[in-house]
């Protein structure tokens, strides 16, 4: 257990967005040489706090001191000048620029570009993070992108390294390599503020921990001695319960309702992933989970299933035995399928349109009462939106608000509710609980389980392995556009899935 000097001390940090206090009088102390976990569910205020420490947000109240002296961090450049580096969850890289240019941008002004390439190489090799300085970021895989971010930080010789959910995009094996790098940095006296909601890795890696819930500090447990259940209870505020539908249920024996046969598709965009010979059957009554690291063809697979990117072969996809590979989304919905994409804003819903109009968005082809003879019936659409809001407990402003006025979790409940309300026979869903608070996530998973129990075939694509293992009857893994055979969830292990995610096997 390192016992370095106090490096960073934050006192009484408050940050409000509108009426909501994202950070409510938070205290945080980080010592040199420690790996300090910042734990909390989505929306607990972790990201807001670190953005304040890194200077990209300004607190409404509170003080920050750095090495014992009061400090104002007005912007990220000032943070870097102090010795604070940050690796973002959603990378802050520039696709159109080279690796070296991406790194040069974060270095203090005046540092010459000459010699940078050599330095990039030496630092990246010293920490086992190989990089090619001249490569363009567009087209590089996620793991490499994270390396760029880390090397970018390390070149500034930081005293404190902030890592925001770094493993969410990594395979278990890649994560293990990252942990080694972080331990080594800590050994050299650098502090690491490690943000995560994954309890197992926090117990493995971190020396100290601060747990946030609803913007407040709710505990400072010792991650080495606390049990997973202890940490979870602090984070969630109650004993955690799963969707709980999968345990002890017999495997589904319903008819095949969704079939994918030898689906191959060229990538539609220069940096997309081509799908190669994907085959999969989902039976009524079961949930099949598709695990995988982001950017391995999940988006393309979803688009092929929804009909946004139809296949060239009609037989490649069958819904309830009817071939529809070349059909668009509307015809597939009429065959009884429903789809929920990963991105709520601008894909599943139009942010600037009202909920009633967003209800029409995916229901106009299947609900003739919404649109007859090309005319819209707006009062019926409002009725439908109201029904979805009530049935699925969507918390929304009164009346018929625009979609963008809803919080992420509530909009997701609306989007899920819009599809489930139809009682679809086949449902393909991508990242069903991405960015959703724990309560809403549990409700959504329960709803998916209930849909499957009622006889529907559910295909769930997710990067969250915990989620996959919790809800799925069978699990397949997508890697570089190829899909592994689906195996019963009870017969596989986290490690085996991890290997497949990394492209082995």
């Amino acid at each position, binding site marked *: 257990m390192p016992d370095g000097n106090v490096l960073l001390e934050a006192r009484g940090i408050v940050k409000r967005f509108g009426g909501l206090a994202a950070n409510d009088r938070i205290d945080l102390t980080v010592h040199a040489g420690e790996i300090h976990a910042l734990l909390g569910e989505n929306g607990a205020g972790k990201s807001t706090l670190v953005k304040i420490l890194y200077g990209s*947000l300004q607190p409404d109240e509170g003080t920050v001191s750095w090495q014992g002296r009061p400090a104002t961090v007005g912007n*990220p*450049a000032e943070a870097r000048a102090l010795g604070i580096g940050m690796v973002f969850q959603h990378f*802050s890289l520039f696709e*159109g620029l080279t690796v070296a*240019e991406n790194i*040069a*941008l974060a270095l203090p002004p005046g540092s010459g570009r000459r010699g940078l390439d050599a330095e990039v190489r030496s630092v990246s090799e010293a920490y086992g993070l190989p990089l090619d300085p001249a490569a363009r970021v567009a087209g590089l895989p996620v793991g490499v992108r994270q390396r760029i971010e880390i090397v970018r930080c390390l070149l500034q010789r930081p005293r404190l390294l902030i890592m925001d959910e770094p493993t969410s995009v990594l395979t278990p094996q890649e994560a293990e390599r990252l942990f080694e790098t972080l331990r080594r940095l800590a050994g050299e006296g650098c502090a690491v503020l490690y943000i995560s909601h994954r309890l197992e890795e926090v117990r493995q890696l971190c020396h100290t921990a601060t747990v946030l819930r609803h913007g407040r500090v709710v505990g400072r447990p010792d991650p080495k001695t606390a049990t997973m259940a202890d940490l979870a209870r602090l984070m969630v505020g109650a004993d955690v319960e799963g969707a709980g539908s999968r345990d002890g249920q017999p495997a589904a024996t319903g008819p095949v309702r969704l079939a994918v046969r030898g689906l191959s598709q060229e990538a539609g965009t*220069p940096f997309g992933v081509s799908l190669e010979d994907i085959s999969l059957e989902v039976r009524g009554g079961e949930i099949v989970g598709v695990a995988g690291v982001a950017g391995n063809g999940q988006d393309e697979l979803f688009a092929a299933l929804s009909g946004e990117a139809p296949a060239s072969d009609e037989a490649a996809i069958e819904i309830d035995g009817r071939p529809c590979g070349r059909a668009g989304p509307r015809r597939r919905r009429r065959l009884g399928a429903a789809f929920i994409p990963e991105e709520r804003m601008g894909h599943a819903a139009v942010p600037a349109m009202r909920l009633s109009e967003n209800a029409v968005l995916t229901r106009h082809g299947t609900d003739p009462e919404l649109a007859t003879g090309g005319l819209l019936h707006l009062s019926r659409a409002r009725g439908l939106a109201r029904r979805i809001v009530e049935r699925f407990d969507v918390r929304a402003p009164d009346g018929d608000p625009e979609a963008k006025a809803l919080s992420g979790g509530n909009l997701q409940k609306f989007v899920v509710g819009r599809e489930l309300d139809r009682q679809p026979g086949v449902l393909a869903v991508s990242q069903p609980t991405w960015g959703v608070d724990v309560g809403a996530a549990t409700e959504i998973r329960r709803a998916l389980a209930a849909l499957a129990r009622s006889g529907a075939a559910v295909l769930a694509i997710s990067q969250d392995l915990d989620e996959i293992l919790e809800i799925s009857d069978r699990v397949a893994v997508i890697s570089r556009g190829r899909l592994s055979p689906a195996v019963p969830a009870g017969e596989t292990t986290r490690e085996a899935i991890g290997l497949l995610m990394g492209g082995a096997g």
Partner: protein
Amino acid sequence: MTGFEAVILTIVTAATPLLIAALGELVTERSGVLNLGVEGMMIVGAVTGFAGAQLTGSPLLGAVAAMAGGMALASLFGFLVLRLAANQVASGLALTLLGLGLSGMIGEAFIGQPGLRLERIDIPFLTDLPVVGTVLFGQDPLVYVSVALAVCVSRFLFHTRAGLALRAVGNNHASAHMLGVHVIRTRFLAVLFGGACSGLAGGYLSLAYTPQWVEGMTAGRGWIALALVVFASWMPFRAAVGAYLFGGALILQFHAQAEGIPLPPQFLSALPYIATIAALVILSGDQWKARNDSPACLGQVFVPDR
């Protein structure tokens, strides 16, 4: 002067305003701002340049006034789209409409007046060299400025830190903001530079190309410069190549008429516009898009949250 020299000379003078305006817009677009007001800034530059030269008696001061005119309009545009987060396409159109109106009003006093010309440089001996003499050494100063500008813009964008920051802002403004680059300030400066270039390009028309003020004398050159930026896939030297090709197309009509080609003059006048459409269509193909360098944030509104 031989016929060949004359052709080259006219191509160069036709291409110069296109090149200057395109380079300015190229920098603006690299920062992620689409300013469709080039035509408006150019025509205002043409009239302020002409007026400046008439009032001071110095065509050089006229060129300065042309830049100032373009920048004044550009700063209005910058305020609209950067400070007030207005739609860039509509604001650019507004700028063009306003510019056409303003220039007409300012220019009314100058219609029919003989203008002052930016004198061609005449270097004894060098200018007298056969074939290359006038082409290389006998042009007006802005021709050299335009070539130097292409070199400088290229150096700036790809070999300086400020240029890197500007490209970063155009590529991903949220990340640039996270890294502490001043997105709005960078873009504002890029818009001002674009305005100065457009103004100067307009000034070239009224001070060197045809030294007089004619209403609407830009005749769509601002729009052609916009197309050139796409044609050049946001690379300065390709913009230069494109400008000379288009200069050639503009000149073709005059020479075709002189050669007595039996086509109505209107058809020949339409050539540059049709050539622009053709270039846009050919260069917008998917294959080309995959390779080009288009700024990812082009036309997107950035509002920092604090």
